[in-house]
């Protein structure tokens, strides 16, 4: 059953076509990789999917709760509310705020008290804030950050900042999670731990995940299907095995080593 349907997606920046005629489909519960050389347009695809850029052409349809929601042309917070959350390649935490506040801010869209209650700290404020705190701490426990809830995000080590990005994305209660190079800059041990975390949250939160990553050991290990981009165009899609042996992919991106492996 399809959850995301991308048809003929195109994005032009002036004369440059960053993404050309891209079509892809994600099924519910799948873990799909999006790979390609630097500058292939992977992050642009994420920015289009999350509304940071508006597509020049094409459509993005999210199927959630039995409804077909067009996401193209929508604002980022609408898309987030519809159930698409993301992390950022160049970590974009609220770095001068605490770890806890980073997560609580992402929970704001499901807030159940109004401005008046915020001003006067009415009983509904106290009740909801308590619930918010519990939910946030639970997410921090999952990502092993509960001991650092009151530290500033900028003071976390790099690997934990990546974990916090994931916790923050989960706090928006997504159905589709987009991870932009979650393992970038991690050592093999940290990557292994992250791999486990990704697989665990996928089952626990019933998520569909689209993942951009350069670490092929991670991609080949956990992705069920892979899309390969080069110069903004889709050059291949298939199972890890098929991708490893695809000649165009090897030429454009993987190189000889992986195909021999």
């Amino acid at each position: 059953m399809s959850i995301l349907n991308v048809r003929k997606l195109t994005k032009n920046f002036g004369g440059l076509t960053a993404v050309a005629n891209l079509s892809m489909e994600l099924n519910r519960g799948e873990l799909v990789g999006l790979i390609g050389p630097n500058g292939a347009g992977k992050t642009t695809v994420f920015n289009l999917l999350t509304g940071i850029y508006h597509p020049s052409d094409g459509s993005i349809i999210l199927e959630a709760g039995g409804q077909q929601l067009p996401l193209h042309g929508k604002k980022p917070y609408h898309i987030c509310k519809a159930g698409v959350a993301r992390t950022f390649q160049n970590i974009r935490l609220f770095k001068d705020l605490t770890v806890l506040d980073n997560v609580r801010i992402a929970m704001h869209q499901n807030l159940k008290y109004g401005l008046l209650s915020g001003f006067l700290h009415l009983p509904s404020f106290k009740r909801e804030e308590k619930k918010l705190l519990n939910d946030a701490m639970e997410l921090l426990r999952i990502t092993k950050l509960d001991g650092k809830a009151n530290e500033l995000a900028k003071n976390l080590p790099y690997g934990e900042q990546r974990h916090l990005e994931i916790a923050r994305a989960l706090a928006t209660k997504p159905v589709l999670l987009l991870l932009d190079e979650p393992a970038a800059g991690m050592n093999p041990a940290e990557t292994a731990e992250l791999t486990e975390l990704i697989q665990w949250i996928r089952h626990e939160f019933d998520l569909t995940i689209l993942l951009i990553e350069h670490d092929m050991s991670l991609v080949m290990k956990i992705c069920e299907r892979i899309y390969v981009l080069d110069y903004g165009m889709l050059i291949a899609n298939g199972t890890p095995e098929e991708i490893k042996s695809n000649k165009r992919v090897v030429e454009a991106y993987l190189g000889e080593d992986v195909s021999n492996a």
Partner: protein
Amino acid sequence: MKKSIAVTPLRKGFALILTFIIVQLLVQLNIINDYLQATIATIGINIILAVSLNLITGFTGQFSLGHAGFMSIGAYACALTVMRVPTVWGFLTGLLLGAVLAALVGFLVGLSTLRLKGDYLAIATLGMSEIIRIIFTNLDITNGAAGLSGIPRFTNWTYLYLFMVSAILLISNFLKSSHGRACISIREDEIAAEAMGINTTKYKVTAFTIGAFCAGVAGALYAAYFYYIDPNTFGFLKSIDVLVIVVLGGLGSVSGSVLAAILLAVISTILQDFSDLRMVIYALLLIIIMIFRPQGLMGSKELSLKAFRNLGGFLSSRKGGK
């Protein structure tokens, strides 16, 4: 743990009421003379202005130079009402009217300058505030450049204190709520905030509206205290004055704004004796403070009873150690 949570709001309330009674007594016993009273009024009004500008600039990260404009709307609305209905109810109606009108303009300004950031936003809000000033200069009802004089005085220590404390408490409560965190996330990273589901448009406009409402209240209190207002009272320099308080106290610290408003008033009162060099020394002091505390007096931290208690514990443990 549970006990201290239950006691703290009571203590806070007690401290607030005690402060009010002490000053009220000093005023009545004439220990605080007219001149000091005027200084206190200025401090109170500046605190409301600074805390509300801090909400817009320090917490939501929207660099605004238009606060004097919002203030003038409150001042003129209240002055015109209270001159026609010189009763307490006239004053309170005028104050509310001024605050609501200022909030309305704040809403429109927030909405129309959404796409602007940083210096560009500062220039746009400055322009807006100048437009308001020029409108007041050219209207008949506001008596043009000559301004309004003979405004009855209704602002006293009670009203001043009531509105000042309300503004501080309501804004700090707001900032501690999820809505406040949404505003702060815009300052931290607007793109990430949007991607995490924050309607940044809504919260920028909310910050401008609340900020302008409070500035309107401050303007009304000003008009009903100093007998006289004219358009130039609310020029560019007034906005800068407020911004200086906010930056000096610390962008993102409510208690910083309160402290800085008091400190600056005290400094300029002391400097009254050095008439010629007054502004030079004032400016020098500002420069020196900013060199040694570039993040402002409080940075983005808040002053709290807990901080005092920790300080007390720290000092006594040091004494004990010796």
